[in-house]
């Protein structure tokens, strides 16, 4: 079975002719992988038997998510299923995901379903990037979930980042002690996070066409980190230029 990933050049080329700016999760993850940030291997299944084959190759349990350029927040359309422990569940999940997305957003074109191994839980963080009209690309770091959404506890730096910038970014957020170990919880791999931020900065330097990027969540472990979802938005190409 062909499970090779696309290179960034292929992804950008494929997205641009149709003036498509929101990359799919599979495409986004391939880019993130190429940037040197650890990411859960994720593959596109175009039908349920393909989904089952991918799940078998990756190993159960798996997570499945609908792949559609029109769907911005997959969980809003019932497009995510986690903890699928058998191939029978995988096949059924394929049909369910497609059906619920069709129902929630009839206009959405569904390319298939992304299948990924279910990552062991870790401390959730978010790594992101966006383009500021005055200064260009900005990298963002914060704790995932409530911390980022409600408390807006994030740190920012302009691209390019220095090692000191990365070090400060991780330590600057108020919730840093959640990463640095508390009570019985061992500290997360802070260096791996810093490395990911530096790699993200290098990636953005090379790819000015990236408008926004979200890695949300990224799981942090005592050893290593793993991005489990990725979303990349490209700049619109002006046909006049």
């Amino acid at each position: 079975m062909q499970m090779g990933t696309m290179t960034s050049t292929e992804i950008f080329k494929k997205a641009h002719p149709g003036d498509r700016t929101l990359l799919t999760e599979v495409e986004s993850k391939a880019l993130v992988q190429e940037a040197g940030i650890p990411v859960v291997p994720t593959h596109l299944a175009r039908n349920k038997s393909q989904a089952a084959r991918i799940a078998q190759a990756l190993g159960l349990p798996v997570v499945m998510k609908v792949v559609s350029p029109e769907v911005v927040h997959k969980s809003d359309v019932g497009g995510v299923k986690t903890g699928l422990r058998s191939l029978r569940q995988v096949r059924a999940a394929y049909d369910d995901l497609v059906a619920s997305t069709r129902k929630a957003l009839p206009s959405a074109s569904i390319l298939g379903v992304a299948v990924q191994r279910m990552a062991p839980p870790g401390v959730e963080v978010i790594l992101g990037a966006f383009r500021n009209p005055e200064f260009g690309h900005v990298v963002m770091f914060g704790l995932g979930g409530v911390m980022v959404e409600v408390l807006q506890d994030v740190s920012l730096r302009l691209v390019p980042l220095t090692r000191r910038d990365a070090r400060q970014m991780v330590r600057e957020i108020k919730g840093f002690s959640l990463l640095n170990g508390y009570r019985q919880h061992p500290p997360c791999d802070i260096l791996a996070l810093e490395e990911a931020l530096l790699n993200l900065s290098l990636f953005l330097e090379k790819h000015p066409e990236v408008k926004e990027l979200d890695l949300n969540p990224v799981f942090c472990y005592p050893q290593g980190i793993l991005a489990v979802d990725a979303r990349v938005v490209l700049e619109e190409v002006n046909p006049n230029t």
Partner: protein
Amino acid sequence: MGLELDSLFHPKSIAVAGASASPEKQGHNYFKNLLDSFHGKVYPINFRAEEVLGVPTYKSVRDIPENVDYVISAIPNLEILDLVDACIAKKARVLHLYTARFSETGFERETKLEQEVLRRARASGMRILGPNCMGLYYPREGIAWGNGFPKEVGKVGAISQSGGNGSEIITGGANRGLRFSKVISYGNALDLNEADLMEYLADDPETDIIGGYIEGVRVGPRFVRALRYATARKPVALLKGGRTQAGTHMVSSHTASLAGSREVWEAMCRQTGVINTNSMEELVDMLVAFSRMPPARGFNVLVGGGAGGKSVLSADECEEEGLRVEPIPADARQELTSRDPFFGSWVTNPVDGSIMGGSRLSPHEVVTLIASSPAYDVVINNITTGRPGGGATTRQSRTTQMIEHTAGIARNFSKPVALVLPDMIPEDEQMLQSTQEMRERCIKEGFAIFPSMSRAARAVRRLVGYHRWLAEAKEEATPKAAASGGRGPALH
């Protein structure tokens, strides 16, 4: 990097288009100030009046018999293109446009006019300062836009997008003893922009400290590069106007919606080592701190000169601003008790001067003695003005004593000393006078004066922060550290 601009600001001749006899007009101020102080030739241009302030006018820049280096425009925007052409014909290096109502109106016609000015200037090589700005204050050359600006030369350079705020930096700073190398108000930044001017001040040997008031950034990435270049050489303190303006672009992701322009600006300042201030007062405070205090090693502060509740609050405010009010170390304590067993073991940091009555030690002696300890990086002293009793002579001798001790601490221990002298309502005329005298003497002595403890503490914290940033940046710039900045396994 930026010194190529230097020749622009050393004109041998200046023409003022719109030089007016009417003192309410800015064209009058420009001309009068130049007439009073500028060392080169000054030409008034006015097509109605025959003479201004006794100087015969020219109807147009074209009528000036020689070439002219620098032209200030205080005429309406309708006549601007003709002036631009005339300046080009007279080989002017710079046209400063006090003239306003261009792109800042948001109107199409005015924006187009501005672009045409730029097009003609670029084609000829003439530079434009502004439009919509007060221009240049350069005391060494005798150029000033404000009537009351100091004539003496100093080491503070500043750029300001707003002329009014530029004036406030100058007059507010002057009031606290600052003197300037040059202050450039640059308005719409049509040609000369924030990055050009920052590069210039960074390389300018006449400037040791840079301040700035910025609204919109024209060339973000170049400005960031200019700031990195500048902060590696001299301290830079900036104030950003329009910080709270929401981003105008559409955003769909978490990341973008979480970061407004204020947060991005703050991040930029952290990365470049710029001291980011939040008000005109804070900006001037930083220029005072950098001008009048040597580098401080750390955040440990000795607080002196307060009485009772004031010293308690002073300690709180220092801690809240991020300084550490460290207890008196054992050796200094021993020295104190050997000099006066009772007060020596009672006194603490903050030093409460009011408990010292009847002691063999004066509050100033106590502060000086403790300040000698390496446990303290910086000293902040409250200046007591409101103590009742004592005539003018007592007050005067108290002032002299305070100044001598403060100068001694700064001189003998090479430690930064900040003085807090609140703007207060005096009890009587005599006290107003003595406070004013004290203030003036402190400024003359070269002390950094702040109107409140929390402002002093904040400025000290930022002063230390800049010098620490600089040390770290130098460390990081060593080849060993630079090699670890990329992809691949972490190098520790």
